């Protein structure tokens, strides 16, 4: 009802105002009407009015001339009155245009000085916006830049204001001393006096604003506040009877409060509150002014009472509640909201004091929530803080539920949530690898989820009044939130709404790119099954490239497309896209580096393909050469262009790391080293190598986790190079560096495994090449390296992963030696290596038994870690291949066999190992060969029943024969044929050792029958490996039987399934 009354009243007022102003657009009415609108803060209406009268052909020329000036003035005042940064900046931009128009058209107008003053105000306002933005959490990263911008604006404003002050002083000095009261000169002089006073206040305000651009508590902050306080004090002392004097006094108090001189500040506010606002001696205007000043003083006083030095929360609550009751009409004003905000803070603080009971705490928090909720519903400077408090309270108690009422409130809430989510996301990318990333990731995801919900809610609440610009901003942020939540399709759909629905929108280009990023993220999750995502990426990329072909986003899109084709094994097409990146682009270097990488990765991938699918040698050679050439070009061209002290760009670092990998691959270890270490003999090192950059902690373009990954990669590469070169001391140093990096370098076991595999492959290659000299050199290096690590254990105990790897490395090296026709010396050497492996493993098991923290946590698997370690030790012992070592090996597996007696599946690897051990033992004791074939029985002491402890090869193959796990492609397919082969092989061994010819023939025939049966049962030999072995064995048997050595080629294939079944039944 009240609002309706007010509406009617003000409508009448306005209508009459408009009409009046239109009818009598003379200077007097014009000024007073405009002043009325401005004094009520109706800047939009004032502008509307000015636009209206501008169309009036009868408008006096004097007014028409000054219209741009007035429009600018209203826009500047209006800018400071809105909390919306976008709107503020837009208004200031317009104001600047109007002021420039006015000054260009009327260089000699009497308002020129004032126009310059307005320029000063405009700059101040710009500075204020920059300083306020700097305080927002979202701008944390460029806070310093924003504060610096603010200061620059303030300094420019100060300079303009100083000029105006000097100009006004000169003008005042030109007046005669004794002017007649009410004469035009006297009025003119008074006008200048007022303007000068205004300038003085503005100058003091600039100092206050300047202080706000520094961190609270810093020396600069305090210094500027003190200067501002002194300036305000001087104005107050000189004009204590004027409104301006009282105003200056109020802000003197504010400056004192902000320098923590709360007592003095309170004294000033109490003094101001002591004036009687109803004093009849004052004019109505003066009384109104004083009342407003006192409201402000009340508010500032409450800030003092809430101050950490005072903590008079109860007083704040009482005073604020009283003020809000008495001035309910002012509740939505800036002062009203400020007081309610102080009330909310006091309630929350009181709730958390020790003396407050639990019951009171809840009641106080509920009240705080309600007050903060009201503050948050109205735009203003406390809205963000209030929203933050609401979110915090909601976090403590789910009962506090915030339900956004309109688009604006939902957006503000969402933005606050987004700031928090971004802060959490930043922490995730932070450099410290010791953080609990899983927990952090969950927290960030939760926050992103809340952000998405709120932005979604904002869109739901958007009505036709909400500008499309705002809706698209919300859509963009929603799309981003979905992207972080890994809801990639949703992210793309929302972004598409902007990208395709509003192609001219400022965010459209970014939205298109976000779509690509979202589909790419979806693609990366399942690269093999993402034809749909690839299509969507290409479709969107085509759109983006067509709409904005020269943009940075287009170049990034080209890089993405290149990467995509590179991943799909099409390096030529990838290179085409990388090559389309414009040379002037900031992504040019990156695109070339990625082109080189695409060729190298294609080369590596192709080499792993089966021969039938592998590209021909010419293509492979081309891939490798192009990769090297492109990457070397980047390195040569770009290195010299980097100024000393500047970080080396990451594409260059990556290119050189790849070049080092290529050199390692080509056995060019010195070349690889030259990329890692570039220091020359004179010590001068303008362009340090990768390892030097990393070790000297030089600035790198990579940051956060990317930096850690890169550093780890450099150390790994250096380790490979040093091992390759036989520089074991340096290699050991690299191991230490990697261990220092901890988990961020990836699991150490992975590093070792890679190194071990590489060494093994290298030795195998050399062996195949029959380059025994080089093979022995590498072997020796590897052995020495392992020895070196072992020696280091005396100083620093080795970790589980290191010891485990060492044992395995000794074992693998030993195996390589006995792979192909080993010589006597190879056999001796391998035995030594196997016994070293066993030694390390025994040590490891012992340490695990004495220190429970030594072993890593149990990972999911069928066998426990301790059982696996025993099994590995048994295997090493078996390979040492002496009667004692075999006996010892069997003693190790026996308890495992007993433990797993009722568990056929987990027992299989143990049974296979046991059969192998018995077989190896058989070389020293023929009876054990029989056990290897038929297994070992054990009698249960309690029940007296016999059970098969070791199944033997016959038992293993029999169990697997009917098992689905031995079908082609299943897990035990190969094991079945392995068992069948070893069964035949053991019979063959028995035959060879048989003393009598008849027995020997029988055994040969048995062995032959087992091979034939294997084939007839399945028509298969379990792949080429076992097929060759079966063939060789059969040839040997046939020779033993003095039959034609046809091998498996003449074996009859089972014709039908029925045939197989019959054979199976017979067998």
């Amino acid at each position: 009802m009240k609002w309706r009354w007010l509406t009617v009243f003000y409508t009448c007022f306005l209508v009459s105002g408009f009409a009046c102003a239109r009818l009598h657009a003379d200077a007097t009415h014009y000024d007073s009407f405009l002043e009325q609108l401005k004094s009520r803060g109706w800047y939009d209406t004032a502008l509307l009015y000015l636009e209206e009268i501008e169309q009036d052909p009868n408008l006096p020329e004097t007014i028409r001339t000054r219209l741009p000036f007035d429009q600018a003035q209203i826009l500047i005042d209006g800018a400071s009155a809105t909390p919306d940064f976008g709107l503020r900046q837009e208004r200031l931009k317009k104001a600047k245009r109007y002021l420039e128009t006015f000054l260009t058209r009327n260089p000699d107008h009497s308002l020129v000085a004032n126009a310059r003053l307005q320029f000063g105000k405009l700059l101040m306002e710009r500075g204020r916006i920059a300083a306020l933005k700097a305080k927002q959490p979202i701008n944390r990263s460029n806070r310093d830049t924003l504060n610096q911008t603010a200061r620059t604006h303030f300094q420019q404003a100060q300079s303009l204001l100083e000029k105006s002050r000097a100009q006004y002083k000169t003008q005042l000095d030109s007046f005669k001393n004794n002017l007649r009261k009410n004469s035009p000169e006297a009025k003119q002089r008074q006008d200048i006096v007022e303007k000068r006073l205004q300038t003085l206040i503005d100058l003091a305000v600039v100092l206050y604003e300047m202080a706000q651009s520094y961190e609270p508590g810093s020396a600069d902050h305090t210094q500027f506040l003190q200067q501002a306080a002194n300036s305000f004090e001087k104005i107050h002392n000189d004009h204590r009877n004027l409104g301006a004097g009282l105003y200056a006094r109020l802000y003197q108090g504010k400056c004192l409060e902000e320098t923590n001189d709360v007592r003095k500040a309170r004294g000033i506010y109490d003094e101001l509150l002591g004036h009687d606002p109803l004093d009849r001696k004052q004019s109505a205007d003066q009384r109104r002014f004083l009342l407003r000043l006192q409201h402000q003083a009340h508010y500032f006083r409450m800030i003092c009472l809430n101050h950490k030095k005072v903590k008079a929360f109860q007083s704040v609550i009482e005073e604020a509640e009283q003020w809000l009751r008495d001035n309910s009409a002012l509740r939505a004003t800036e002062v009203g909201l400020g007081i309610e905000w102080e009330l909310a803070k006091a309630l929350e603080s009181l709730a958390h004091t020790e003396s407050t009971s639990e019951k009171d705490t809840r009641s106080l928090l509920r009240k705080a929530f309600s007050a903060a909720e009201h503050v948050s519903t109205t735009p203003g400077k406390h809205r963000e803080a209030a929203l933050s408090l609401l979110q915090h309270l909601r976090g403590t108690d789910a009962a506090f539920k915030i339900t956004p009422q309109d688009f604006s409130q939902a957006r503000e809430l969402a933005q606050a949530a987004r700031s928090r989510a971004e802060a959490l996301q930043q922490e995730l990318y932070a450099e410290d690898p010791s953080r609990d990333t899983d927990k952090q990731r969950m927290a960030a995801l939760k926050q992103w989820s809340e952000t998405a919900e709120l932005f979604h809610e904002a869109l739901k609440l958007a009505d036709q009044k909400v500008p499309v610009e705002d809706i698209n901003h919300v859509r963009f942020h929603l799309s981003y939130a979905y992207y972080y939540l890994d809801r990639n399709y949703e992210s793309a759909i929302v972004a598409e709404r902007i990208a395709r629905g509003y192609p001219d929108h400022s965010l459209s280009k970014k939205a298109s790119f976000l779509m690509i990023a979202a589909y790419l993220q979806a693609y990366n999750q399942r690269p093999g099954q993402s034809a749909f995502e690839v299509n969507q990426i290409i479709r969107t990329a085509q759109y983006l490239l067509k709409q904005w072909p020269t943009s940075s986003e287009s170049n990034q899109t080209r890089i993405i497309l290149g990467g995509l084709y590179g991943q799909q094994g099409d390096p030529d097409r990838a290179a085409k896209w990388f090559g389309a990146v414009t040379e002037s682009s900031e992504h040019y270097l990156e695109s070339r580096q990625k082109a080189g990488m695409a060729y190298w990765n294609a080369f590596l991938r192709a080499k792993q393909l089966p021969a039938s699918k592998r590209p021909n040698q010419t293509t492979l050679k081309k891939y490798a050469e192009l990769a090297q050439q492109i990457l070397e070009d980047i390195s040569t061209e770009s290195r010299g262009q980097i100024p000393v002290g500047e970080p080396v760009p990451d594409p260059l670092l990556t290119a050189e790391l790849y070049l080092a990998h290529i050199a390692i691959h080509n056995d060019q270890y010195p070349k690889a080293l030259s990329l890692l270490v570039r220091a020359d003999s004179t010590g001068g090192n303008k362009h340090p190598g990768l390892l030097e950059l990393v070790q000297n902690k030089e600035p790198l373009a990579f940051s956060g986790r990317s930096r850690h990954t890169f550093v780890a990669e450099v150390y790994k590469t250096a380790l490979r190079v040093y091992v390759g070169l036989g520089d074991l001391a340096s290699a050991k140093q690299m191991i230490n560096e990697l261990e220092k990096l901890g988990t961020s370098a990836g699991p150490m076991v992975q590093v070792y495994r890679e190194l071990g595999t590489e060494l093994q492959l290298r030795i195998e290659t050399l062996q195949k090449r029959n380059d025994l000299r080089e093979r022995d050199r590498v072997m020796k290096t590897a052995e020495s390296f392992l020895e070196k690590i072992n020696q280091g254990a005396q100083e620093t105990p080795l970790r589980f992963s290191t010891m485990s790897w060492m044992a395995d490395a000794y074992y693998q090296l030993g195996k390589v030696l006995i792979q192909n026709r080993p010589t006597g010396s190879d056999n001796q050497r391998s035995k030594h290596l196997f016994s070293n492996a066993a030694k390390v493993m025994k040590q490891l098991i012992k340490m695990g038994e004495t220190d429970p923290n030594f072993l890593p946590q149990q990972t999911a698997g069928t066998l426990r870690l301790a059982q696996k370690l025993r099994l590995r030790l048994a295997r090493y012992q078996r390979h040492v291949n002496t009667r004692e070592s075999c006996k010892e090996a069997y003693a190790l597996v026996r308890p495992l066999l007993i433990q797993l007696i009722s568990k056929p599946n987990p027992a299989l690897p143990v049974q296979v190992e046991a059969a192998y051990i018995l077989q190896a033992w058989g070389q020293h004791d023929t009876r054990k060969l029989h056990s290897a074939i038929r297994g070992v029985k054990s009698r249960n002491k309690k029940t007296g029943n016999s059970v098969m402890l070791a199944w033997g090869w016959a038992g293993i193959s029999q169990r697997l024969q009917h098992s689905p796990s031995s079908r082609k492609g299943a897990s035990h397919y190969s094991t079945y044929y392995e068992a069948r082969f070893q069964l035949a092989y053991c019979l063959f061994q028995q035959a060879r050792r048989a003393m009598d010819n008849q027995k020997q023939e029988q055994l040969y025939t048995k062995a032959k029958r087992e091979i034939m049966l294997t084939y007839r049962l399945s028509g298969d030999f379990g792949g080429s490996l076992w097929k060759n072995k079966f063939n060789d064995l059969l040839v040997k048997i046939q020779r033993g039987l003095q039959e034609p050595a046809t091998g498996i080629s003449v074996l009859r294939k089972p014709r039908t399934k029925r045939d197989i079944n019959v054979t199976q039944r017979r067998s």
Partner: protein
Amino acid sequence: MIRPAPGIHFAFSLHSNNGRVLPHWVSIELACLVVVLLVSHADAVDSVRRKSTKRAVFGSVTTVSRENVTVSTSSGPVNVPAGDVDFIAFENQPPVLNLGLQAEQRGTLEAALDYYRQATKMDAKDLIKTDIEYFIARTTARQALLNPELSKTAKRLLENFRTKHANSYHYYALHDWLGRIDVASGNFDDANRAFTIFGQAPWRSHKLRAQLRQAEIEQSRKNFTKAAELFESIIQTPVQSELEKECQQEAKLGKAHCHSKQGSAADAETLIREVIEQTDIIDTKMHARAYTLLGDCLYADRTSPNKRLKPALLAYLHVDVLPELSIHSEQHAKCLFYLSQIWKEIGKPDRAADALVRLNQRYPNNAWGKTPTNP
């Protein structure tokens, strides 16, 4: 952070903006009001928003009939064809009525009914009361399209309204709703009768829409060849207004549906994508329908060698993710149901469960959860 006001008007009007009584948006509203007052009738308080121009005629609604709403404006009486009336905002209408309309527009039908019921208890003139009665019947009809159990109630409410207010400007629109409920319940003869009355309206757009509804009846009867012919004839009709163009776009969607059912998924997809391309982004209803239908076509084609499960998912997701599309409850409910199916099929059971929960929460008793069928 507190800071002094930037501009200080010296004559004791310092800090003037801090003491203002009205928030600044009020000033904008008032300015707009002034503009309205200047251009409109002195006593103008009712506004009749037109579908064709998306603008309002300000004045006083004097008479209403099946064919016209007459508005007395400063420049004389203006006849707005009933078929072109989007809505009438009457002077002194209960504020809760606006809330109801907004809720209905957002697709929160239960909330809309609550507001309308509250509005019926308030004092208002007859024209407003009549409107509220119609809005209740219309919202119930909307619900009935999702929940067939409400069909009888909705039909009763609409028929009661017809009996009581035979001369209402809602007369023809009411028959469209009646026909749609009948189609949904399989009463094709009744639907035919209702659409015939609807087509008797004196406006081309209504006649065209009536033809569209007849085609939809054939579609529901699974006479896809005949339906496609009827849709095609609408597509070939020269159109003059935006409302007629809208009918034509809907006919294209109908034809696409027939194509899909006749096994020409590719033709259907092309036609739907054409509609999406050609429809203004603010026409959310058409977009919601088009994306839902696109999802249907692609999902129905999921067994083809192309396996278009993900494209179908993306189409349905449009209606769920974009709030401006999800307000169209009929489409949204359907999309949620199929999303729950597809998420399951592509190995995301949690997302499937989420879609199903939201379907049942937002549209309790919806038909989708009960009769899962192929689209």
